[in-house]
């Protein structure tokens, strides 16, 4: 199927600003689903609130647009009742790790099979450019005009420590990686986290004098490298991309089914 067959074309052109990286994530996600050969009925997309969460309105899968930060809680309900569906949960950095931080770590701890797609643009775009827990020390935001003194989370470390069994990172410059990592994450039997560094030229870029979308993409190209590359060894400041965690641990729905079997056996005596 062509890319357009997965879109709700009546909502296009989309609401994201010119040069917003979230459109590129949508592009990569659709190409991943196309390569996986899944039918639109096999996929549920659950999102919360924010610029990034508007992605669920544009795809022609089963979609839910839910509460701020609570997408993973709704997704857990869907997955437990219909484990055969593939659940994808796109979230912004604030939605995933500030408002929904608790849902995020506990979904990771349970290892429930779904894909959390963290579209990290380091800012709250929809509400006017407030700093998020991913903005990082020294950045400028509407609510930190004299520079931010909050340290940022590292999504990969947080997700790994919380127990996610597939953790990866890439950027919207590296579009082939976006679709490849999403494919692997969807196929992974457990909680998978894919962090995609995305650009917000309107707020993060402008506040931090990073230039327009093209310059911000160039920054992703220059300031990131593959895990374990020679460049990473020479310059520890570079952000590493790739798969950080990929392991097997009992999956939550499978374990829950075992509990049901035990309980039913006990009832039947």
């Amino acid at each position, binding site marked *: 199927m062509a890319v357009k067959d997965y879109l709700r074309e009546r909502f296009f052109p989309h609401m994201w600003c010119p*040069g917003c990286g979230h459109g*590129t994530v949508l*592009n990569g996600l659709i190409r991943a689903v196309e390569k996986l050969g899944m039918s639109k009925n096999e996929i549920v997309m659950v999102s919360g609130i924010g610029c990034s969460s508007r992605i669920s309105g544009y795809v022609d899968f089963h979609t839910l647009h839910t509460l701020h930060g609570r997408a993973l809680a709704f997704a857990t309900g869907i997955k437990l009742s219909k484990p055969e569906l593939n659940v994808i949960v796109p979230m912004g950095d604030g939605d995933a790790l500030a408002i929904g931080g608790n849902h995020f770590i506990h979904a990771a701890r349970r290892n429930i099979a779904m894909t959390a797609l963290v579209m990290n643009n380091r800012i709250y775009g929809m509400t006017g450019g407030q700093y998020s827990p991913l903005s990082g020390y020294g950045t400028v935001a509407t609510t930190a005009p004299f520079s931010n003194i909050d340290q940022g989370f590292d999504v990969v470390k947080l997700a790994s420590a919380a127990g996610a069994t597939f953790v990866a990172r890439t950027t919207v410059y590296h579009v*082939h990686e976006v679709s490849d990592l999403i494919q692997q994450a969807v196929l992974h039997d457990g909680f998978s986290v894919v962090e995609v560094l995305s650009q917000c030229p309107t707020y993060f870029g402008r506040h931090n004098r990073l230039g327009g979308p093209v310059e911000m*993409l160039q920054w992703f190209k220059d300031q990131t490298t593959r895990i374990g590359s020679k460049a990473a060894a020479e310059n520890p400041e570079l952000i590493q991309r790739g798969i950080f965690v990929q392991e097997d641990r009992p999956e939550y729905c499978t374990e829950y089914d075992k509990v049901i079997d035990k309980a039913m056996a006990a009832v039947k005596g």
Partner: protein
Amino acid sequence: MAKRKLKEHHIQREWCKGCGICVAFCPKNVLEMDSSDKAVAVRLEDCIACEMCALRCPDLAIRVVVEKC
């Protein structure tokens, strides 16, 4: 690997918001912005059908049809 050849290159003008990402990162400098700040493919003869413009387009406005020969 089969050689890739461009068959068709479409830009949906109503969806293009003129960010310039496709123009800046095209390896063969095929695209340009026109007077109304929309992307246009002006040197299609140089296109190597790598599809990077279509993949990176945040507006999903570009479609590249590739002929494999």
